[in-house]
C-alpha cells in the first residue's frame, strides 16, 4: 500500500538579509496510513518549515511531497486548495477566528467546502460534542481557556473530514494536564476516524505519549528516525540524545566517573538487576537518576548509574547489564 505521506529529497531555503538559510536539507521519509508520526527537534531545527511543506503552506525549493497519492507540488492552485481540505492542521496558538463563536469557527471549513449553512451548523454541533465542548458552542474564543480553544480547533479540523492531521506544537502553549488531555483527544481521533497524524514538537514527552514512529530533526537535516522505543532505548545521534536526556542537566556535572544509561521494559523490572550486580562484583554503584515512562502504552524504565572508578570492574558491569537484556549505553560526561 502506498504511504499516506511520502517526502523525497525535500529542500527548502529562504533568502534573508544575512544570506541563504537552509531550513530543510534533502529530507526523505514516509508516513503510513493511520500512524501517529512525530517530528522532534529543538527550536530552529526546521520543524515548522517541514510541516508547512506537507500542505504546501511553504513551497519546497526542490523535492517532492506526495500526500494521499498526489504530488502536491504539481497541482494547480485550485486542485491544491481542494487537497488541503484533506489535510487538517492545528497550531500552537490555536488560530481561531476571534470574531466568531466556537460553533461558527467549526462551520468555517464547511463554508469553504460549500456545505449549506443549516447542515454545517448541525454537523458543527456534533463535532463540538466529539471534543466535549457542545455547551460552549455559542462562546467566543476569548471566553475559552487554552485547552478549550485547542478543542475547538480540533473540532474545526474534523469538520473538513480530513485524512491527515498536522499538529504544529499543538500543546506547547498548554499546561501539562491540559497537554495530556489534548494528546488523549488526538489519539482518540486517530483511532476513531483513522486519521493519520503528524506531530511536530520539541518535547520528548509528547512523542512518548502518542507517537508510533519519530524522526529527529537538527539544523534542517533529518538525523535519525525509527520507532519511539528505539529512540528512547538507544538514541544514535547527539541530537537525539539531547532530546531524550532533556531536563536532566544535573547529570552534566557528574564528571570523571563512568556513567551508563540503562533502559528496561516491564518484565526485566521484576528482577533485582542492580542489587544482583552489586552483589556479584561487591562494589557499589551510584544511582543518579531513575524513572519509568509510558511509551506507546508500555512501561519503559530508565536509570543512570555511576560505575566504580576501577576500569576493569566497570567494564565487567557493563557486560553484565548487557547480558541481562537491558539497553545499556555509556554516556559521555558532557551529556546533559
Amino acid at each position, binding site marked *: 500500500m502506498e504511504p499516506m505521506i511520502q517526502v523525497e529529497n525535500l529542500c527548502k531555503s529562504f533568502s534573508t538579509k544575512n544570506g541563504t538559510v537552509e531550513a530543510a536539507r534533502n529530507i526523505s521519509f514516509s508516513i503510513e496510513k493511520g500512524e501517529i508520526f512525530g517530528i522532534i527537534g529543538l527550536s530552529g531545527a526546521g520543524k515548522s518549515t517541514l510541516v508547512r511543506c506537507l*500542505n504546501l*503552506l511553504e513551497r519546497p525549493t526542490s523535492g517532492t511531497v506526495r500526500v494521499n497519492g498526489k504530488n502536491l507540488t504539481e497541482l494547480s492552485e485550485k486542485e*491544491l*486548495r*481542494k*487537497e*488541503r*481540505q484533506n*489535510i*487538517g*492542521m492545528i*497550531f500552537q*496558538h490555536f*488560530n*481561531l*477566528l*476571534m*470574531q*466568531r*463563536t466556537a460553533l461558527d469557527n467549526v462551520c*468555517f*471549513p464547511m*463554508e*469553504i*467546502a460549500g456545505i449549506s449553512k443549516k447542515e454545517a451548523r448541525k454537523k458543527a454541533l456534533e463535532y463540538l460534542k466529539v471534543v466535549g465542548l457542545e455547551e460552549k458552542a455559542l462562546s*467566543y474564543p*476569548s*471566553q475559552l481557556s487554552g485547552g478549550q480553544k485547542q478543542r475547538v480547533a480540533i473540532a*474545526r479540523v474534523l469538520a*473538513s473530514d480530513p485524512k491527515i492531521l*498536522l499538529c504544529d506544537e499543538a500543546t506547547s502553549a498548554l499546561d501539562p494536564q491540559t497537554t495530556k488531555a489534548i494528546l488523549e483527544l488526538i489519539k482518540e481521533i486517530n483511532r476513531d476516524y483513522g486519521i493519520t497524524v503528524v506531530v511536530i514538537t520539541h518535547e520528548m514527552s509528547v512523542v512518548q505519549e502518542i507517537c508510533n514512529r519519530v524522526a529527529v530533526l537538527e539544523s534542517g537535516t533529518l538525523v535519525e528516525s525509527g520507532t519511539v522505543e528505539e529512540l528512547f532505548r538507544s538514541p544514535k545521534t547527539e541530537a537525539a540524545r539531547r532530546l531524550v536526556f532533556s531536563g536532566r542537566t544535573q547529570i552534566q556535572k557528574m564528571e570523571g566517573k563512568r556513567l551508563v544509561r540503562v533502559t528496561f521494559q516491564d518484565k526485566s523490572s521484576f528482577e533485582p538487576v542492580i542489587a544482583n550486580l552489586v552483589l556479584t562484583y561487591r562494589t557499589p554503584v551510584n544511582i543518579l537518576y531513575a524513572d519509568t515512562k509510558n511509551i506507546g502504552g508500555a512501561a519503559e524504565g530508565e536509570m543512570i548509574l555511576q560505575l566504580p572508578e576501577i576500569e576493569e570492574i566497570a567494564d565487567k558491569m557493563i557486560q553484565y547489564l548487557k547480558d541481562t537484556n537491558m539497553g545499556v549505553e555509556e554516556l559521555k560526561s558532557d551529556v546533559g
Partner: protein
Amino acid sequence: MWDNATITMLLEGTRDTLYMTLVSTFFGYVLGLPLGILLTITDKEGIHPNAVVYKVLDVIVNILRSIPFLILLILVIPLTRLLVGKTYGSTATIVPLVVAAAPFVARMVESSLKEVDPGVIEAAVSMGAGTPTIIWKVLLAESRTSLLVGVTIAVGTILGYSAMAGTVGGGGLGDIAIRYGYYRYQTDIMLVTIVILVVLVQILQGIGMMLSRKLDKRKA
C-alpha cells in the same frame, strides 16, 4: 440673528454638510476599501505578494496624501467639471473630498487589515480557503472593529475637509462660517456653525464607537 431665514440657512447648511460628508465617506470607501485590500494582500507578508503592484499603489497613495486639501480642491476642478458639470456647491465638493478621502481610507483599511493575526490567515489557507474567502471572511470579518473605528475617524476628517471647501464656495456649514463669520464679521453665526460642527462630530463619533464596541467579540 435668530430670524427664520438664518435658522433655515443653518439647517440647510447642516443638511449639506451631512450630505457631503456621508456621500464622500461612502465613495471614499468605494475606492479606498479595495485599494486598502490590494495594499494588504500584495505586501511582502500578504497572501499574494507582488512588489510592483504594491509599490505603484503605495506611491500613488502617498502622493495624494501629501497634497494639502486646499490645493487638491483647486487641482481637481477639471475633474469636478467633467463629473458634476459645475465647480461650486455641495455636490461639486464631493469630488475633491472623495479624491482626498480615498487614499486616506486606503491607508486606514490597510493598517486595520494588517492587525489580523497572520496565524489565523495561515489557518484559513491550510483549510483550502481561496483569496475571496480569506478577504471577506477572515481579513474583513476579523478586523471589523478596527475598520469601524477607521470609518469614524474618516467621517470626522472628511467633515473637517468639507468645512474647508467652504472657502471656495463648497456649500454647507463651512461655507456659512466663512461667508458670515469671516467676510461679514458676524462672529455669532460663525460660533453657531462651530457648535453645530462639534455636535455633529460628537454624534457621528459616538455612533461609530458604539457600533464597533458592540461588534467586538475579542474581549471576554
